[in-house]
């Protein structure tokens, strides 16, 4: 670590050689008073030039007093900026300039001063795209980490909300902040998060997905072991349950760890609507999850091996529609599923103007032409369509991608071993889910290992007044969420 020199000329030479061919870094020399040389360095587009002119340059340049001004005096009397910080070494100076904070160096004076006047164009807070709700806050995280931190601070206005910051990415120098609530979070979890984040050595971090892949427990699992969200309320509820929230600069997606599988099937709105509908919708999601996973494979298995399971009339109508189809059920299913995945992918990637064309072509090709030309049967189109719709009902996108991927091996198993293959596939998935952990928390908790009391946030969505405890595996240093006996009762307080 090299320290800044007392001589301005040396510092200027060093910085100019560092920022050679960086025309966006501006060096502005000026005099404080009559003879003291000073230098202001900032990056164009990242610094608030109006504020610099008004509150830094003009008071200093209009200084009348003679002699060399003391740096402390400059800070205390002249610089009408609230956020200033001393810098002593060259590395830090370079970093501050790169991240947008203007740095002022004064000849024969140490330390240098960074002025917190970074300002750049940022997106306004908007409604999150991927997680929309009918009832609930409409704000979403943005690409700016300071805004995201403020959004969380607005939700939890308590000094116990702590955060630790670190910089990852040798070139990108991305700021990463992990937040937690002191007194709820488990210290071991915190140490583990700290260690895993500090182990990362990468050239650049452009999205929180980079971080997620570096810190998860089982990299070869199709299931996400870290929750990602762009909703501050989801992040705040994670904090309140003793989880750690990891924010990465430059992306609106924040990470929450540890999680269990069930967190992936809970939408924030479950907790805002009335609890009965919350429970029913939760159950609906579990059923839809199962359908999304096994419907095409079950159809293949029944048609190939277990025709006797179908009632005769249904079997006859399916057989009639399959009369002209040249493919066995498995091939038919795979073709249709791949087509569906292609249309879905095209729908996401294509520019919006072309998107509607894709859906028209998709609907015509899949729905009409394929059936009438006798390439696929109508029931198969229905099966694929139902599967597609059900997989959209899973609230977390990365959980539904896991199901999408697993659907294909399940179809292969069903095509070779029938229902036995499906059962073995499901067993293999259960074994795998029981093997993996998220930051040491078993992935299927509280179902296995069984925690009876916590089931009421998994099997049902219990009303808020009965959710007295936090999940034990994440928040066991402080398990009580709220006191007993808060069930509403009109007679309360009258006696």
């Amino acid at each position: 670590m090299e320290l800044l020199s007392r001589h301005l000329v040396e510092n200027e030479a060093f910085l100019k050689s560092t920022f050679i061919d960086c025309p966006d870094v501006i060096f502005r020399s000026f005099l404080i008073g009559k003879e003291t040389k000073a230098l202001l360095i900032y990056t164009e587009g990242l610094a608030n030039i109006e504020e610099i002119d008004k509150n830094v340059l003009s008071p200093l340049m209009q200084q009348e007093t003679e002699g060399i001004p003391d740096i402390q005096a400059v800070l205390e009397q002249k610089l009408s900026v609230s956020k200033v910080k001393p810098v002593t070494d060259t590395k830090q100076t370079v970093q501050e300039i790169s991240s947008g904070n203007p740095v002022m160096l004064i000849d024969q004076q140490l330390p240098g001063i960074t002025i917190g006047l970074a300002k750049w164009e940022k997106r306004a807070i908007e409604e999150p795209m991927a997680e929309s709700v009918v009832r609930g806050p409409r704000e979403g995280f943005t690409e700016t980490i300071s805004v995201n931190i403020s959004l969380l601070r607005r939700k939890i206005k308590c000094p116990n909300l702590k955060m630790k910051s670190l910089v990852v990415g040798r070139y990108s120098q991305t700021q990463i902040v992990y937040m937690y609530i002191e007194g709820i979070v488990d210290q071991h979890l915190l140490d583990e998060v700290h260690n895993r984040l500090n182990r990362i050595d990468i050239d650049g971090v452009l999205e929180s997905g980079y971080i997620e892949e570096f810190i998860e427990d089982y990299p070869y699992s199709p299931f996400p072991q870290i929750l990602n969200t762009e909703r501050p309320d989801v992040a705040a509820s994670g904090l309140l349950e003793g989880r750690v929230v990891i924010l990465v600069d430059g992306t609106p997606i924040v990470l929450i760890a540890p999680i269990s599988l069930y967190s992936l099937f809970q939408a924030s709105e479950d907790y805002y609507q009335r609890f009965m509908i919350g429970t029913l919708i939760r159950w609906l999601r579990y059923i839809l999850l199962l359908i999304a996973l096994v419907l095409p494979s079950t159809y293949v298995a029944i048609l190939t091996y277990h025709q006797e399971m179908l009632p005769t009339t249904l079997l006859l109508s399916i057989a009639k529609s399959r009369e002209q189809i040249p493919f066995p059920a498995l091939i038919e299913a795979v073709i249709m599923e791949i087509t569906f995945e292609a249309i879905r992918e095209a729908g996401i990637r294509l520019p919006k103007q072309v998107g509607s064309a894709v859906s028209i072509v998709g609907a015509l090709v899949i729905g009409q032409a394929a059936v009438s030309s006798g390439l696929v049967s109508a029931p198969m189109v229905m099966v694929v369509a139902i599967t597609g719709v059900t997989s959209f009902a899973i609230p977390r996108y990365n959980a539904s991608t896991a199901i999408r991927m697993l659907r294909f091996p399940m179809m292969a198993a069903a095509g070779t071993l029938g229902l036995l293959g499906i059962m073995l596939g499901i067993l293999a998935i259960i074994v795998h889910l029981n093997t993996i952990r998220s930051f040491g928390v078993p992935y299927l908790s509280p179902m296995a290992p069984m925690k009876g009391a916590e089931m009421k946030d998994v099997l049902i969505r219990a009303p808020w007044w009965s959710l007295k405890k936090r999940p034990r595996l994440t928040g066991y240093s402080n398990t009580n969420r709220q006191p007993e006996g808060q069930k509403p009762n009109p007679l309360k307080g009258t006696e």
Partner: protein
Amino acid sequence: MLERGKISALQMAFMMNPTILATGLLLVPAITAKTAKQDLWLSPIWASFIGFMIVFVAYRLHKLYPKETMFEYSEQILGKIPGKMVGAIFVFYYFHVTGIIVREYGEFISGTFLHQTPMVVVFSTMIIVSAMAVYGGLEVIGRCSEMIVPVLLVLYLVIFVMLLKDLDTKNFFPMLENGLGPSLKGSVVLQSWFSEFILVSFFFPYLRDHDKGMKWGMISVFSVMFYMVLTNVMALLLFGKLTASLTYPVMVAARYISIAEFLAHLESIVIALWVAGTFIKITVFYYVLVLGIAQWLKLSDFRSIVLPIGFLLVLFGVWSAPNLQVLSHFLSTSAPFYLLSIQAGIPVILLIIAWIKKKRQQMKGKLIG
């Protein structure tokens, strides 16, 4: 310690249920009906006594050597070489028995389900999934059974309820026509299933709540007995005297189910559920075999031998019997004595010797003191 994971006593109880019941439910009604006739529902009750006894013996041994499994304390009780020999008996025994279980599974699947699929494929697909669980260790097996078994137990009751309309209670009579004799004779074969409860002695050292081990062990013996009685009652009331001539009465029973004229022929679903139970059974035996070999050979980690042993189990499945008739004959004639002498005989002898040794040491202690 080889196994670092811990399970709860409840998980152990859940593991033991399908471990006894999975193959039992298929074969028990027909086998007991042959000797016990219409009193077959009494046989599981008599047979369960051996289950209670074995859990008790295993728990006593566990109290004497709290941190060890049978492979380890047999050396302490009998001395190095005889102890190793007992270990060898158990290793080869579990190889053989797991092979038989895999074979039972394969015979059933190819007999009812996949007639043309080679049996080796049926074996090996199951062994691969089991190997995944064994590789994960005891914790994973415990959690899997905690998830799967309650569902299976409830669905089994649902089957029973759906069959209620077809049951004919007259089949119970004449009750105890020839005294208790036939039902006691019928229980002999069942005892070999109940003697499999000696598996709990391999789980006791890894219980998180040691003191509840005995309680939950006994509860799971009771639950196994309950389900066997239920199965036998179901078979008896549904088929009467026919029970003995059917190979898999429960599967035939499942064919009777029809819900709202739409969901008929549920036996495929019943088979799929049964496969889940058998998965637990094979995994538990497979795990004990792998753990036992690792402890017997004093390996530092059992994960490296999971796959080789899985391969051997497929071979043992092929080799254990030429066909279903021979297998079923073996199971209903010589197997009970074979299974009982190893699963009940050896632990009882071990416990007696251990007690004598302890008494002697106390005597010596008194003499010196």
